[in-house]
């Protein structure tokens, strides 16, 4: 991956003339005026993203405004652009866009791509529907919400690619004096078959820049896709295999020193005093800082800084949270839910009369489920390198929202946004953790105090205990069946609502009366978006309760869900595919069980069937079958990997994930007490992909996760008759 820096870019000797760049611009005065006030900083600013350039050597560079954290986004987005452009995939290069508001907010885009070019053609095709989503994702350069392919890719990369191709074709037509309709493009060549002429894109790049701008470039239909839908090899993999990939933690700044940090164990406390008499004498120590909300030691190496930090005796202020443990927090949740009763809380969706239909139901089921706090445990620990000097600041990290990180650093350094340069590396795991700015702010403050460049690395202990967590939560259900065992009443009330707002809802299930409410309860620890966010708990709550209702109806879990999805053929197909793959209904050995779960999220529909073996001392998940319909799969290999990794991450949490509190502080510290799934515990995963709607794409990063916990607990129920209503599974005894 090309990493942007102005110096590196110029230094690479990129040609100063005769090249084409194409962008998708959003400007005041366009039909999409309503975006202006939302996105522009000032009245006269225009918003512009430039997405592709063609060099004189016929290399097509896709400029990707999203960060790579192992999800394969650089490759998938480049595929979308290259396909519409009819580019030669083997010659496509990838450049991550700089963390620069100017890049998205004024004409500097051209400066970034072509510092010396006089008047590049900045294309401004009007993007059709969904422009708001697009602009948000692009403008903020935010990578998350399983958003990149379905928003940026679908609406910007493809449009830019198609526009570039049309302009190249138009340029060739005028040069060759033939109608545009007779010209085709393939493998980065423009071709006129009748005359036998063909030339590389580069030959027309300059002329293309002078063509009028296609207002609405024609996008391909799926039967013409050549690169989209193919399992193209990931661009970032070779460097990750040979070790040359640069992650945030690999930042190497001449003269940099290292900082280790420790924040008060109880959130909200401050450092009252520190005794650093030993640390002062320890090898390599340069500075010892009490920053008020944390302590830092700066030393010649990270290890020496951490050793010295460990020797510091710190006193913290008292807080209201000092006495808390997780039982007290769950007791708070219970009290709030009790108080809400039948009508309290905030109603999210309601249809029919859930209270009355429950009262009249032939069979009534009530259940309460809980999930614990979860840490992100990214394999690359939190880190940030900063250098504040002479009214400027440089920051290096791996962040999901580079523009936000840059602003956070500016605020922490007391500088303007323009005075900060933010350098983004690969992210060694993001999962939402790297959308927070805490590490950026801490490192910038330390660097400001020292005046020289400092790389701050959190210890794993700090990483585990100072996360922004997936909230613990409680959810209560009342469900009613009519005399035929049909689900007619659904009443759910749960704690918290963060993102996405539809996570607790079940619009795809046909239930006559339903009511879904939430109550807000302080949860002591900080909230952080965690892979699939609220779906991570609601997938478990909803699909466990559906299973309980099926059981109460005396029906099979798969058959019961089929009835609920009877009017949604696209959903049904996904459910049926997973069931069929798994041989649903076939006999399993004794003490083995099969469980099914179905969770649409982030625009994709996913069903999973898990098989468990309960014959040993603890549950062993042996096999998972996945059927997924994200509309259209741009890269089947990458999408399959996302389903698999969603299962790794979700199964880790379902089996073991449990952040607990004692005296207000997180008790876990490292992988011995915050377990990851081991390779021998990883089930075999089989994935079937369904292209159900090529116009409305769904995401890949998150949707693989929510079904796994309930698929497994439902399988445990099938094998043992024991219903898991509180995660993690490891808390339960199966002896």
């Amino acid at each position, binding site marked *: 991956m090309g990493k942007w820096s102005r110096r590196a870019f110029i230094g690479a000797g990129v040609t100063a003339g005769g090249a084409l760049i194409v962008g998708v611009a959003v400007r005041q005065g366009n039909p999409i005026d309503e975006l202006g006030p939302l*996105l522009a900083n000032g009245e006269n600013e225009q918003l512009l993203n430039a997405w592709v350039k063609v060099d004189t050597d016929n290399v097509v560079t896709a400029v990707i405004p999203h960060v790579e954290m192992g999800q394969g986004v650089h490759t998938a987005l480049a595929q979308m652009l290259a396909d519409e452009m009819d580019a030669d995939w083997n010659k496509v290069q990838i450049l991550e866009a700089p963390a620069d508001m100017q890049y998205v907010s004024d004409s500097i885009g051209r400066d970034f791509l072509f510092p010396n070019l006089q008047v590049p053609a900045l294309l401004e095709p009007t993007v059709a529907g969904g422009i708001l*989503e697009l602009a948000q994702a692009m403008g903020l350069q935010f990578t998350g919400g399983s958003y990149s392919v379905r928003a940026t890719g679908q609406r910007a990369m493809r449009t830019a690619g198609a526009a570039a191709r049309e302009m190249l074709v138009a340029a060739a037509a005028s040069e060759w004096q033939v109608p545009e309709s007779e010209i085709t493009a393939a493998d980065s060549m423009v071709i006129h078959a009748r005359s036998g002429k063909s030339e590389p894109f580069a030959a027309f790049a300059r002329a293309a820049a002078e063509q009028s701008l296609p207002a609405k470039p024609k996008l391909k239909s799926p039967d013409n896709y050549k690169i989209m839908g193919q399992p193209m090899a990931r661009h970032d993999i070779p460097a990750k295999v040979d070790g040359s990939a640069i992650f945030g933690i690999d930042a190497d700044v001449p003269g940099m020193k290292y900082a280790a940090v420790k924040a008060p164990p109880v959130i909200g406390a401050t450092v009252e005093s520190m005794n650093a008499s030993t640390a002062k004498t320890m090898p390599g120590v340069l500075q010892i800082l009490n920053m*008020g909300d944390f302590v830092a030691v700066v030393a010649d190496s990270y290890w020496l800084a951490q050793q010295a930090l460990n020797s510091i005796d710190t006193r913290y202020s008292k807080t209201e949270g000092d006495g808390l443990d997780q039982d007290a927090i769950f007791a708070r949740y219970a009290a709030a839910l009790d108080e809400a009763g039948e009508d309290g809380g905030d109603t999210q969706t309601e249809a029919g009369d859930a209270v009355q239909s429950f009262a009249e139901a032939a069979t009534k089921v009530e259940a309460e489920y809980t999930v614990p706090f979860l840490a992100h445990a990214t394999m690359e620990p939190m880190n940030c390198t900063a250098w504040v000097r002479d009214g400027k600041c440089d920051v290096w990290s791996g962040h*999901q929202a580079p523009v936000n990180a840059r602003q956070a650093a500016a605020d*922490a350094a007391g500088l303007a946004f323009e005075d900060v340069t933010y350098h983004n590396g690969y992210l060694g795991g*993001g999962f939402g953790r790297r959308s927070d700015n805490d590490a950026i702010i801490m490192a910038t*403050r330390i660097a400001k105090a020292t005046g020289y460049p400092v790389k701050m690395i959190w210890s794993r202990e700090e990483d585990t205990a100072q996360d922004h967590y997936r909230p613990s939560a409680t959810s209560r259900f009342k469900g009613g069946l009519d005399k035929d065992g049909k689900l007619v009443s659904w009443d759910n009330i749960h704690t918290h609502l963060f993102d996405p707002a539809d996570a607790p809802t079940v619009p795809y299930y046909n239930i006559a009366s339903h009511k879904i409410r939430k109550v807000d309860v302080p949860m002591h620890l900080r909230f952080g978006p965690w892979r699939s966010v609220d779906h991570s708990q609601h997938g478990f709550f909803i699909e466990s309760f559906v299973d309980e209702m099926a059981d109460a109806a005396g029906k099979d879990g798969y058959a019961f869900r089929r009835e609920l999805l009877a009017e949604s053929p696209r959903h049904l197909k996904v459910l049926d595919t997973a069931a069929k793959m798994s041989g649903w209904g076939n006999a399993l050995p004794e003490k083995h069980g099969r469980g099914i779960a179905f969770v649409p999220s982030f625009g994709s529909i996913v069903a999973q069937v898990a098989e468990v073996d309960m014959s040993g001392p603890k549950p062993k998940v042996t096999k998972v079958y996945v059927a997924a319909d994200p509309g259209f799969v741009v890269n089947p290999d990458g999408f399959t990997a996302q389903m698999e990794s969603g299962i790794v991450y979700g199964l880790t949490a379902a089996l073991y994930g449990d952040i607990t509190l004692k005296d207000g502080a997180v008790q876990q510290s490292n992988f011995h007490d915050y377990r990851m799934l081991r390779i021998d515990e990883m089930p075999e995963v089989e994935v079937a992909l369904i292209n159900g709607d090529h116009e409305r794409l769904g995401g890949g990063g998150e949707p693989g996760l929510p079904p796994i916990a309930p698929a497994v607990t439902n399988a445990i129920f099938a094998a043992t008759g024991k219903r898991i209503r509180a995660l993690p599974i490891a808390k339960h005894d199966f002896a």
Partner: protein
Amino acid sequence: MLLLIRAAALSSLIVLAACGADPAPGPVEQIIVREPGAAAAVASAEAPADALLAEGKAAFANCTACHTLEEGAPNGVGPNLFGIVGAGAGEVAGFAYSDALKGSGITWTATELDSFIADPAAKIPGTTMVAGAIADAAKRQAVIAYIDSVTAN
């Protein structure tokens, strides 16, 4: 790979971008032990007189990740090495040695130190000193001289 982007997030960014917020607070307490590039205070007081000691001091960087050398400094991954030349193996108080080292019966003469630093595991199979070996004989000599000089001062 998450977080849904909402209008709220968007507008808050723009607010931030528009007005420079106050800088985050600086240190409450800042202890500057030394400036980068300056020699460590303890070491500079005992600056080696000749080139051998200077080389030994530089070579001791191989050891600082695990060992302290100053009198009374705490044990790290390995024991404090103050006064090690001439001492018996496994005698530093409060350090959990391997049985292998503890039971080795070695007295740390310069020669014994030399073969240990050359290849700790060969000298004492089962030792938990798993890194820090120095292959270069001249460097070993220098580092031993340096360790001894610190003790002698």
